[in-house]
C-alpha cells in the first residue's frame, strides 16, 4: 500500500492503495464515478476511457501509480458550469445511444479525437474511433454526432475568439 494523490475532475483525492491497482477500480469503487465502466479489462474496448493530458487513456490497464498527480477527466467532468460539452450535446441531438453502456468510450474517445483533429475527415473518424467498440452497433450515429460536435465546437471557437471550449 502507498499514498497517492489523484486529481479527478478538478478535485483532489488522497488514497492509500496498492500502486498496481488499475485506475478503473479506484475511480468506480473509491471515488464513486460511473462514467468509466468495465468492459474487457484488456484495453480492447474503450469502455473505461478517461482523459489524461488530452489523451484517451484506458483506465482498466493503467496502474494508479502511473497517473499520480495527473489531471484526470471522466465523463462526469466534461460538462462545464452546468453546460454539457458539445460532444455530449451532439450525442443527445443525434440520439446516439442504444443501451448506452459503451458510450463513455465513444464520447471520451471522440472528445480526444476532436481535440486533435478539430475537423476530422471520415477516414480520421473511422480510424480514430476503431478501438471504441459498441455491440449495439451505434457507430453510424456516433460518426454523425462527431461531425455535428465538430461544427458546434468550431462555432463556439469562432464566437469566443481563441478561447477553446473543453
Amino acid at each position, binding site marked *: 500500500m502507498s499514498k497517492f494523490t489523484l486529481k479527478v475532475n478538478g478535485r483532489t483525492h488522497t488514497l492509500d492503495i496498492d500502486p498496481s491497482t488499475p485506475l478503473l477500480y479506484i475511480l468506480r*469503487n473509491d471515488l464513486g464515478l460511473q462514467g468509466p465502466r468495465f468492459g474487457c479489462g484488456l484495453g480492447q474496448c474503450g469502455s473505461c476511457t478517461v482523459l489524461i493530458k488530452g489523451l484517451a487513456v484506458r483506465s482498466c490497464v493503467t496502474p494508479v501509480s502511473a497517473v499520480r498527480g495527473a489531471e484526470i477527466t471522466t465523463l462526469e467532468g466534461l460538462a462545464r458550469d452546468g453546460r454539457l460539452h458539445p460532444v455530449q450535446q451532439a450525442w443527445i441531438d443525434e440520439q446516439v445511444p442504444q443501451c448506452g453502456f459503451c458510450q463513455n468510450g465513444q464520447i471520451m474517445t471522440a472528445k480526444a479525437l476532436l481535440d486533435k483533429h478539430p475537423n476530422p475527415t471520415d477516414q480520421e473518424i473511422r480510424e480514430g474511433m476503431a478501438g471504441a467498440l459498441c455491440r449495439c*452497433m451505434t457507430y453510424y450515429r456516433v460518426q454523425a454526432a462527431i461531425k455535428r460536435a465538430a461544427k458546434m465546437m468550431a462555432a463556439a471557437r469562432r464566437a469566443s475568439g481563441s478561447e477553446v471550449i473543453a
Partner: protein
Amino acid sequence: MTEFTRVPKQVEDAMEKWNGTTSRRDFLKGSGLMVVSFSAAAMVNPNLINATASAAVAEVNPPAGPYKDPDFRQLDSWIVIRQDNTAAFYVGKTDCGQGTGTAFRQIMADELDMAFDKTDLIMGNTETTVDQGGSGGSDAIRVDGWPMRRVAAEARRVLLEMASKQFGAPVDQFSVSEGVITVKGDPSIKVTYGELIGGKRFNVTLTGKDIDATTGVANLKPVQEHKIIGKSLPRYDIPPKVDGSLKWAVDAKVPGMVHARNVRPPWAGAKLISIDESSVRGIPGFIKVVSKGNYVAVVCEREEDAIKASRQLKVNWEKPATPSFPKSEDLYDYMRNASPTSVTQPTPPVVGNPDDALASAAKVIEAEYEFPFQGHVSFGPAHAMADPSNGQMTIYSNDMKAYRLRRGVADFLGMPQDRVRVIWMEGSQAYGRTAADDAGFEAAFLAKEVGRPVRVQWMRHEETAWDTKGPAFTFKLRGGLDTQGNLIALVYNARTADYNHVDYNDPNTVLIGQLVGRRPSAPAKGGAGPPADMYVIPNLRRTTEVVRLPLVWETPIRAGNLRDPNGPQIAFASESFIDELAAAAKADPVEFRLRLLTGSTDDDKVFTRARSIAVVKAAAAAYGWDNRPSPKALGTGNILTGRGIAYCYRQTTIVVEIAEVEVNRTTGHVWVKRLVCAHDCGLVINPDGLLNTIEGNLLHGLSRGLHEEVQFDTDKITSVDWISYPTLTHADTPAKIDIVLVNGDPNPNRPDLPPYGAGEAACRITPAAVANAIYDATGVRIRRVPFRDKRVLAALKAAKV
C-alpha cells in the same frame, strides 16, 4: 443541463445508506401520496432516478418483504396520478436500449391524454410493476403495448366520469387535453386529473384472462387521433447516459457489499478435484472461496483483489477423458455426420411433389451453407448484485426478464418466492438469453453463502467463452427451374446444433445450476422453423434436424436465444439460395423474388404477400436498383463492387435489405459501403427510435456476417476476447444507411393499424444481402459465415478472380 441529469440527493442516499432494515426514509415524509407501495430500495430503480417527481410518489413497505406480485387486474397497479397532475406508469417491461421505455410513455400518455413530460415510467421491478415478462420476442410494442394502451384509456375514462359526477354533466360534454378536463364551450369550467384523483386510488378492477389481455371498458383512440404516438420524441434515458449520471446495474452498491469473481473450469466438462485455499489467503481483504460441485468463486472486500484471487487460486481439475466437441474447423463435418436427435417440419411438411418436380426440372441447383456458433458477447460482461438482508434476497440486475429471474432464483435457493425480488436497472445490451441470467443466480447464491451483499462480475474471457450461443447450422438446398426459369421445386434440409437449448432463468440449466449438478428431467430438444418468407413455390419440402455435440452439460457451447434466434442462420441459406436460383435463371434478383411473391394471393390472410411486394419495391426504389442478373461483368480494378438483396418476413414484420459492397481483390476485404433497408412493422410509435433500432439491428447482422464466429478446440472455447472474437467496428461502418419505413398494411389509414415488432427482424437478412452482393461483384459465392478477409480471399483465389 437537462432535467434528467440531476440524480435526486435522496435517491443517492437510498443507495448509499439503505441497509435493509430502515423502514422509512426521511425524504418520504410529507409526500402527499400513499398509493403504490414501495420499499426504500425500490427508490434506487434507475427509472425513478430519472423521474424528477418520483420521490414524491412513494410510500414505504418494510423492506423485509414479503414481496407481493402487483395485481395486473387493478388499474392502480399500472397508473398513479399525483396531486401535481403528473402521472407515473408502472409496466412489467425492460428497455434493452431500443428506446421502448420512451415508447411506452408515449403510448400511455397519449391514451391518457397527458403531456409526455408530465409522465414517468417505472419498469422491471418485480415488487412494484406487474409481470409482463420483461423483454423478449420483439414484443414490447407488438404485444405488451396493447394492455398499456387499454389501461391508460381506462384511466382516462374513469377520470372523465369523475368530472361528470363533479359537474353534474354527461361525459360527452367534456374534452380533455394534457390532463385538464374542460366543459366543451365553457373553458372556465375545468378540473385537472390531479385535482380529481391525485393522492387517491382508482380502485378500478380490470379484466382479461391474462396480463396481455388486460383491459377496462374504455375504447382506444383511433390511430388517427394520436398526438404523441407517431412522434420522434427524444428518448428520456439518453441524457443521463451521456452525462454520466445514470446509475446502472453495475453501479448498484449497498453498505457491506463485497466482490466476487468466478473461477471457471479450464476445460469444458472438467471435474473439480481440490482447491488449495492457502494460495489466496494472503490477499488483503480475502473473505472466502465458495465452491459447490464444479462451481467455484472467490469473494474479497475489494474488486481488484477478487480478480487477483480468481487468477491466483490453485484448483485441481480433472480433464474429461474424451473430447467435448469437435474443433471449430471440423464442426460442420461433425454435424453432417451426426445422427439427429430430433426432426422438426412445418405444417404441412410437404407441398406438392418436390421429388417428381425436381426430376422433371429443366435445371437443378444444389448448394450447401454453413453458419457458425455466435455469441451474445455482451459489451459489458454479465454482472449482478444480490443483497441477502433480513433473510430476503434482493437482486439488482440488468437481466431483461426480471420476473423469471426472481422465480428461478427462489427455486434455486429454496426460498419462498415472496422473499425474493429483482430490481431491474439499465445495463449492457440484452438481445436474448444472455449471461445476465447466469450472473443473477450466482450473485444470489454467493450472497446467501457469504451472508453479505455480493456483486459478481464476469470477466471478458468468461463472457466471450461462456455466455449462451446462437446455434450453428448446416444447410443443403436443392431447387428446380423450368425452361422459363420459374422455380418449380425446392427441398430445404437444415441441421442445427441446438440440442439442450437453454431457457431463460431456468434453475436447472443456468450455468451455476449445471455446475452444481442440477439437471432437468430431459434436455430441451431444440429445433428451428423453416425459412420465413411468403414465396409461392408449388413443390416444397422443408426439414430441420437437431444434432448434439458430445458434451451436453457444463459446456461453454450452450445453445440459447440470441437476437432473432435461428433467423440470420436460416435466412443466410434460404436468401442466398434464392439468389443462386435467380442467377441460374439469368433473372434479376429483385424481379425473381417479385415473381415468387405474386404467384398467388388467395392464402394471404394478413396481406403479408401484398405488403412483401410493397417492401421489396420500396427498397429497390430507394437504392436505385438497376434491373439485371447477377453477377455483373467482372471489373478490372482492385476494388470490385456489387449489390445484393435479401427479404424476410418475421412475425408479420417485413424487411428487405440491399447491400452495396466493395471487395478488395488482393486482400479479400469486404466493405459494405451502403445499406438500404425497407421496413414495415405496422404502427410506428417513435419513428426516430425505430430508425435507431433498425440501424443497430442492420449492423448487428453485418457484424455477424462479416466477423463473428466462436472458435474452439476439442476441450475449450478459444474465442476469449475482442481479438479472438472480432466484432464490427467504426472502421467497417457503412458510409451510408438509408431506411425506408413502409406502412403498407394494407390500408395505412385504418383506425386500428397494429404494431408488429422491430427489435430483431432487421438483423436477419444482412448476412444474406452481403453474400449476394459479394457474388454480384465477384461472381464468387461465399457459402459460409463469416466473410472474413482470409476466407473471401481464398474463395477469390480458387475462382481465379
